[in-house]
């Protein structure tokens, strides 16, 4: 997106630490930094994909942006307003502008509410609809996501996974939010259903003009849907670039590693497998590149200096001391 338009959602220096139970923590730190100083902006109407391996903090970031969790440090602003400064009641009003789609459509719908009752909730709260106008809106929403109006009377367990995800999507877009966080919305679905749901998301996004944070670990899916891609590793952003640029010219060694896992369709082929050294314990050292120790391009400076995101090409940022053909001089030798 162009740098001059104003961001819809923006976070600065976002940190979320979780306290580990004493036994799981092992020696040293009892805290786990799921998100570690993340700054990111989502612009109106764009789809920003957030990718990374499981446990890297993608989902936590999504929840922090919607203030479903409180950040340990840092700020989240929505349309210029600091979400932390809002009262509980004001925040609930604000929620009509920001919605979420969950990974597991079996868990995200209350089994005791009919589909109609689930869809009615946001409409009653934010639009104060009732009676006929409410029923009509629900029928319209169900049709928009490829279901039938009479499905409103049924319970979630009467639907397949794909249909449930359609219902969850209908709920998320029901009050025309400007921003939706989609947390791995297709990864629990069959491959054949994934395509349909993705198509639906793309269509809805286009017709409603909303911005989306699309959280995924599946780069093939990300490629189809996103305008920009942000790559996360251990709670930090390591690369941020327009989608086409990222796939054609990945800069960060971690991004390259991720891409090499996707783009090798013939597993039997000869050639060196990507060099994946097993990650060490996830203790936070507080300095140095988090990918150091696993990185094929590692230089001595990587364990001492924390790389910041640098704009190596127009709109293409990477947090790596080595990437971009401009290695920093190694002072130690």
């Amino acid at each position: 997106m162009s740098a001059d338009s104003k961001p819809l959602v923006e976070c600065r220096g976002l940190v979320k630490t979780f306290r580990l139970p004493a036994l799981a923590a092992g020696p040293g730190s009892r805290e786990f930094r799921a998100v570690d100083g993340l700054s990111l902006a989502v612009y109106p109407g764009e789809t920003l994909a957030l990718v990374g391996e499981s446990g890297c903090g993608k989902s936590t970031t999504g929840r922090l942006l919607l203030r479903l969790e409180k950040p340990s440090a840092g700020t989240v602003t929505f349309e210029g307003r600091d979400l932390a400064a809002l009262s509980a009641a004001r925040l609930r009003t604000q929620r009509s502008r920001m919605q979420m789609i969950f990974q597991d459509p079996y868990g995200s719908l209350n089994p005791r509410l009919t589909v109609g009752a689930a869809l009615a909730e946001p409409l009653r709260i934010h639009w104060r609809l009732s009676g006929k106008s409410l029923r009509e809106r629900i029928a319209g929403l169900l049709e928009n996501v490829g279901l039938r109006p009479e499905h409103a009377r049924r319970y979630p367990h009467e639907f397949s996974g794909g249909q449930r995800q359609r219902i969850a999507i209908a709920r998320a877009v029901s009050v025309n939010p400007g921003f939706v966080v989609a947390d791995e919305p297709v990864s629990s679905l069959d491959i054949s259903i994934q395509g349909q749901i993705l198509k639906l998301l793309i269509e809805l996004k286009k017709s409603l003009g909303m911005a989306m944070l699309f959280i995924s670990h599946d780069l093939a899916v990300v490629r189809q849907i996103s305008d920009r891609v942000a790559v996360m590793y251990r709670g930090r952003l390591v690369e941020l670039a327009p989608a086409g640029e990222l796939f054609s010219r990945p800069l960060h060694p971690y991004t390259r590693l991720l891409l090499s896992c996707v783009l090798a369709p013939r597993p039997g082929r000869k050639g060196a497998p990507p060099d994946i050294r097993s990650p060490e314990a996830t203790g936070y050292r507080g300095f140095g590149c988090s990918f150091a120790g696993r990185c094929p391009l590692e230089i001595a400076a990587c364990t001492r200096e924390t790389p910041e995101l640098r704009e190596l090409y127009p709109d293409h940022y990477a947090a790596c001391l080595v990437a971009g053909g401009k290695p920093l001089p190694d002072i130690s030798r």
Partner: protein
Amino acid sequence: MSLRAYRSITLRIGLALVLLLVLSALCAGLLAPCDPLRVDVASVMAPPSLAHPFGTDYLGRDVLSRVLYGGRISLTVGVLAVIISGLAGTLVGALAGFAGGWVDEVLMRLTDIVLAFPTALLALAVMAIFENPTVGKIFIVLGLVGWANIARLVRAEVLAVKERDFVTAARSVGVSPLGIVIRHILPNTLGTLTVALTLGVAGNILTEAWLSFLGLGAQPPLPSWGAMITEGQYFLTTRPWVCIFPGLAILLTVLGFNMLGDGLRDVLDPRLNPRGRR
């Protein structure tokens, strides 16, 4: 639910027993051959016969009639006490589980205190405070004693349900905390709660029986099963029917409610159910 309900033999037997008892208690007026309070000096301690199928007690009252009317007392006390403890326990448990923090801490320590007392002692103490114990006071006492278990259970369920995605979804939609508890969390604890309440009825009937046995429950001449056993205990070796029939009634009732509760657990517990089927 229907398929599994039919498959669970425990549930069917339990349901049959409970229905039989409820019906016989409701229709006691029609089924009982005599007035349960009518004293007949001519046939004191008569063994079971055609006129008195369960025999008569030391005042010549018909044991069958007294057992039938006694069912009314037992079932009323059991059910009313469960309603009281169910409401109080759900309120405390839901509040503790949902609010967390110091609210949870205070409420749960209070629950621990109630649970730390032996039920018997607590019930005896409270009943003794009342100057003249009556049936109406028993279920209040049982309710006061029983809420703690329900509160613990509801709290645990609320803690589990609270973490599920649809609760987060409700929050992200903008539902108020009260709406989340009432519409999203509590309905999803109903399965477990139903089981606990059914088992609670059995426990309460048993407690009422021994409280009456100790003279702290229903007072003579009211036909309470526990009180009937007290009256018959001195003749147990020579005139066993005075004790045996009310004893059997207690046995069958408690067995029936326990089997119903266990059966309901089999049917309602989502962990035993395949995904999505209720």
